[in-house]
Structure formats: C-alpha cells, structure tokens
C-alpha cells in the first residue's frame, strides 16, 4: 500500500502566512483540543463561581445514594452521599485552581531565577544552581510529600508548594539551555554591545521574547501535574478533604464501589481527569511543536 503525501504548489506570495497555518495538522488538532479543554475548565470555573449548576453540589439526598446516571435528572448519577456527580465535577476544578496556580507560580518564578542565574552569569552560580536542581531532583515527589505530611499537617497548599518546588529544576534547565543557546548565537553579546542593561536584556529580550513560550508550555503541564498528584494523594487519604469536591477524592470515594460492579461514580471523575490532563499535555505539546521546534524547515 502506498501512502501519498499531498503537496500543492502555490505561486502566490507566501510571506504573511499566520503561524497556525504553518502548524502541522496534528499540532492544530492538539492545540484545538487543548484549548477546548481550557475553555471547558474556565466555563466550569465560572459556572461554579456563579452557582449556575444543575444541582447544589453539597446537597445530600439520603434516599438516592449511588444512583446510576439519568436518575431523577442527575445526568451522571449521584455519589455515596446522594450528591449530584455532574455538579461536583463542574465545581471540582476549583479545588485545583488556586493550589495549582501556586505550584505553577513557584515553579515558574523560582525556576526562571535559577535558570537565569545559571545561564546568564554562569560560573559559580551555575554550579550552585545545578547542584540545587539536582538536589531537588533527588526527591521522589510523592515521597517528599509524604515526608512533609508526616512533619507538618496535610494541606493542599503545602502539597502544591512541594509540587512547585520539585518542578523548579525542569523549568530552570529549560531556561538555562535557552539562554545558553542565545549566548551561542552571540545574542547577548550583541545586546550588551548595544548598551542595554542586564535587567533589560534578561527581562525583555531573554525572558519575554525568547522564553515566553517555554514558560507557557510549562504552565500548562504544571496544571496537569497538580491534578494527577492530588488524585494520587486522595487515594492515600491526604488529598483535598470532604466536603470540598475534587476530582481526586471523587475517584477515590467512587472506587470503593468499583469492585462491586458500580463503576460509574469513579469512572466519571476519572474520565474527566483523563480528558483534562490529555488536554493540557496536548496543548503543551502542540505549542511546543509550533513555537519551539519547527519554526521553519
């Protein structure tokens, strides 16, 4: 079987082609899907914030425990307290929103600092920040979280701070390699020769113009990370606690009935997690392909 790739000539002027048209169709699908998920997340957030939900997510219905989908208007059924699963799914994103942002914030800000110190000034700072990065990398994230839980109290913000801190090395190494690449191209020397101040070079020319996309991609991946970690922690009992709904604790409590053949209460949130994380990952991937790798051939 032969698979032909189609190429059509175009004799028109091609200078002004927007970047999304340059993207491979696959990347466009990825980004489209990712943006769709982000949109859903934002919509859920707004719906949750304005209480525009099919049911009150906290409303307990003792007569309707573990109802299957479509029962009495509960589109996705009810959970072990007879609460509406759909409403809880919608509002569940809020459990990740601020903690996730905290993790992302820590990772991006400190990671960028580390990266700039290591890449821009180099020398001893480079060695020191590489050492610190390696040090942070030496801790398996979940084990470190368990250590923190043992030492302090389990709290989603503490956990997310740990997630953020352990993500620093990734961001730092990306920023560092970016700066080293720019250095190789004599970009920084040229800028210095133009009389620009260090601050201007770093903030405007390096971070804003060249590292923006890297940071955006890392932020999308960070959100996915936060959701997955919280899910694992929920299983271990240290995640977001009732009555606040989070997708993680919904899967966990639903999974208690999984073995008895009652799949739905855990499947609905698990699929939500799956689709959302896929969305963030694919968005990051697509952006990476477009913005970072395939500038042009």
């Amino acid at each position, binding site marked *: 079987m032969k698979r032909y790739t189609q190429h059509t000539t175009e004799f028109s002027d091609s200078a002004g082609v927007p970047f999304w048209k340059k993207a491979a169709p696959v990347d466009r699908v990825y980004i489209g899907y990712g943006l769709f998920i982000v949109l859903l997340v934002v919509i859920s957030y707004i719906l949750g914030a304005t209480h525009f939900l099919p049911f009150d997510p906290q409303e307990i219905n003792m007569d309707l425990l573990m109802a299957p989908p479509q029962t009495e208007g509960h589109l996705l059924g009810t959970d072990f307290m007879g609460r509406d699963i759909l409403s809880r799914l919608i509002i569940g994103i809020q459990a990740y929103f601020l903690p996730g942002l905290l993790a992302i914030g820590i990772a991006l800000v400190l990671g960028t600092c580390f990266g700039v110190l290591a890449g821009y000034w180099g020398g001893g700072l480079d060695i020191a920040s590489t050492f610190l990065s390696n040090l942070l990398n030496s801790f398996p994230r979940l*084990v470190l979280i368990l250590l923190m839980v043992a030492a302090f109290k389990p709290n989603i913000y503490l956990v997310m701070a740990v997630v953020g801190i352990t993500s620093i090395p990734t961001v730092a190494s990306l920023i560092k390699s970016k700066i080293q690449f720019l250095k190789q191209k004599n970009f920084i020397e040229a800028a210095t020769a133009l009389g620009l101040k260090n601050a201007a070079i770093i903030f405007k020319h390096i971070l804003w113009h060249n590292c923006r996309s890297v940071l955006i991609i890392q932020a999308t991946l960070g959100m996915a990370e936060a959701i997955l970690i919280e899910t694992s922690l929920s299983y271990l009992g240290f995640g977001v606690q009732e009555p606040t709904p989070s997708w993680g604790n919904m899967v966990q409590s639903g999974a208690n009935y999984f073995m008895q053949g009652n799949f739905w209460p855990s499947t609905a949130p698990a699929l939500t997690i799956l689709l959302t994380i896929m969305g963030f990952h694919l968005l990051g991937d697509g952006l990476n392909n477009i913005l970072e790798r395939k500038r042009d051939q």
Partner: protein
Amino acid sequence: MRYPAFFKARSAMKLASIRPITVLISRELAIAVLLLLGVSFVVFLVLFLSPGDPFSSLLKEQMTSAAGSHPGESAPWYSQYLLWLANITRGNLGTSIRTGLPVLNEVIRVGINTLYLTLGSLLVTLLIAVPIAIVSARHGLTPVNWVLTMFTYVASALPVFWLAYIVIYISMHRFGLFPLAFGSSTQKWNWLHFMLPVLVLGLSNGTMGEVVRHMREELSRVFSEEYICTARAKGASIWKHAFKEGFLIPITEIIAAKIPYILGGAVVVEQVFNWPGMGRMAWQAAQDRDYPLIMAITLMAAIFVRLGSLIHRAVHIVVNPRSSRE
C-alpha cells in the same frame, strides 16, 4: 624501530584516554555523595522545622552522652545534624518508632522490593514507549503510530490507582486470577501476580507520553545529523551509528529522570497490589509520624534516584568522549 615507538605512543594514548574517564566517574561519585549529603540535610531541616521536635527522641542517647546536657534544648541545630549524620554513616538509622525494628534493615528489605517494582515498570514503560518512538521518528506520524502515541498519552493521564482497580477487576472476572504479587505464600507462584502491578505502574506512572516524545525528538534529531548521512553514504547501518547518541544516551537519560516519578507511583501501586515495598512503608510511616523510618525511606529513595543518574552520567562519559572535555 617503528614498533617500539608505536607501542609506547599507543600506551600513552590509552592512558590519556582512560584516565579522564575514571577521574570523571569518580567525580560523579563525589557529586552523588555530596547530593546525598544535601538530601540528608533537607530531610533533617524539614523534620527540624516540624512541630514536635522529633530529633530529641531520636538522638536522646547520643546527645546526653555527647553534650552531657538535656537533649534538644542546649544543642544547636548543627550539632544535632552532625550527630545524626554520624549515626547514619555508621549505619545507625535508629529504630522504627512503630515496630522497634532497626530502620536500616527494614528499609533495605522493602527497598529491594520497590526496586523490583520500579525497574520492572521502567522496563515496561520503555518496552512500550521506545518502539513507538522509534517508529514515529523513522516514519513520521502514520495513523497507526499516531493511535499508539495517543495511547501512551492516555496511559500517562490515567489516575494510577483507578487503572489498578480496573486491571484487578478484569483479571479477576475475566481471567480468574487474583493479582496480588506478594502475600501469596500458600498460592502457587504465578508470574502474572508479579506482572500486573509492574504492568500497571509501567503504563500509568505518568511518564510514558513524555518518554515517547523525548525519544522521538532525540532520535529524529540524531537521524538528521550529518554523520548519519555519512553513514548512509558509506552504506553502513544508520541504526548502528545512531545507537549511541539517539538511543543509549536518551534512554539512560529517561531512566535517570523518571525514577523519581516511578518511585512516586509505586507508593500508590504498592497500596493497591499489596506490594511490601518502600512506598507502602512510607505511607504507613507518614501516618504514624515514624520519623526515623520516613527519613530513611526518603534517603533510600534519593539513593535510588542518584544511582539512576549516576548510571546515566557514567554511560554518558563512557559513550561520549567529548564530555570529558567539557
């Protein structure tokens, strides 16, 4: 006349080419030791800052004998740390608050189990991800390997315990097999008991999608290197030439980078599959605030991570002589 000179020069060359490697590897070792020191310090710091002063109980005997004073009060933090460190280097990690067993033995015992699980699932991850990466690096995204790639993305986005439940459910109701790896002393040993947890963790440790992407990028980058073109031009196998840079180095890189993630996933998988490993013990220790135990587990996990990256560095140094110049 010619040969003696030749041999002399050759041996000199050999020396020159080998010495840097041993030097470099020992340097890596030294860095690893330094990092472990750092890890121990961080662990110490976390517990030191935690409410409840876990160290006074840990170091009680040493402190009183060393400082001759009441523990925890007069001793400054650094002497506490040094004492603790000295104990560790002597192999004395204390005894578990919960069971009274020496922590070192306990952690080594469960550590080995976790190592099986970790390495096994790493193997699973690589066995699935690498072929997909190779195929898509070589042939681009065809529908088949696009589907496979998506599969790896799905796998890495699944909550691991949920997948574990599904696998257990299916294996019980479909195959009539109860997938508990350990705790089966009266049952006949079945390799599937071992395989399922490894498979679940391998699939769903959250790294597979990234492994595929990394391998694919590295491989396609190497395939577009000029020396691969040279290799093709001289009729040699490009796989052979791309092996070291496009395969060996990225794989050791992945192994080094993903061990922490897999160890994290192991915490959950060990719970579900009743695997008597470090993760399960860490969870128990976190609940009981069994400080000596959780410290030892964190250290042990860090040792695993450092070992992984040591292997990576060693391979990198041995394979790539350029790095000896860097």
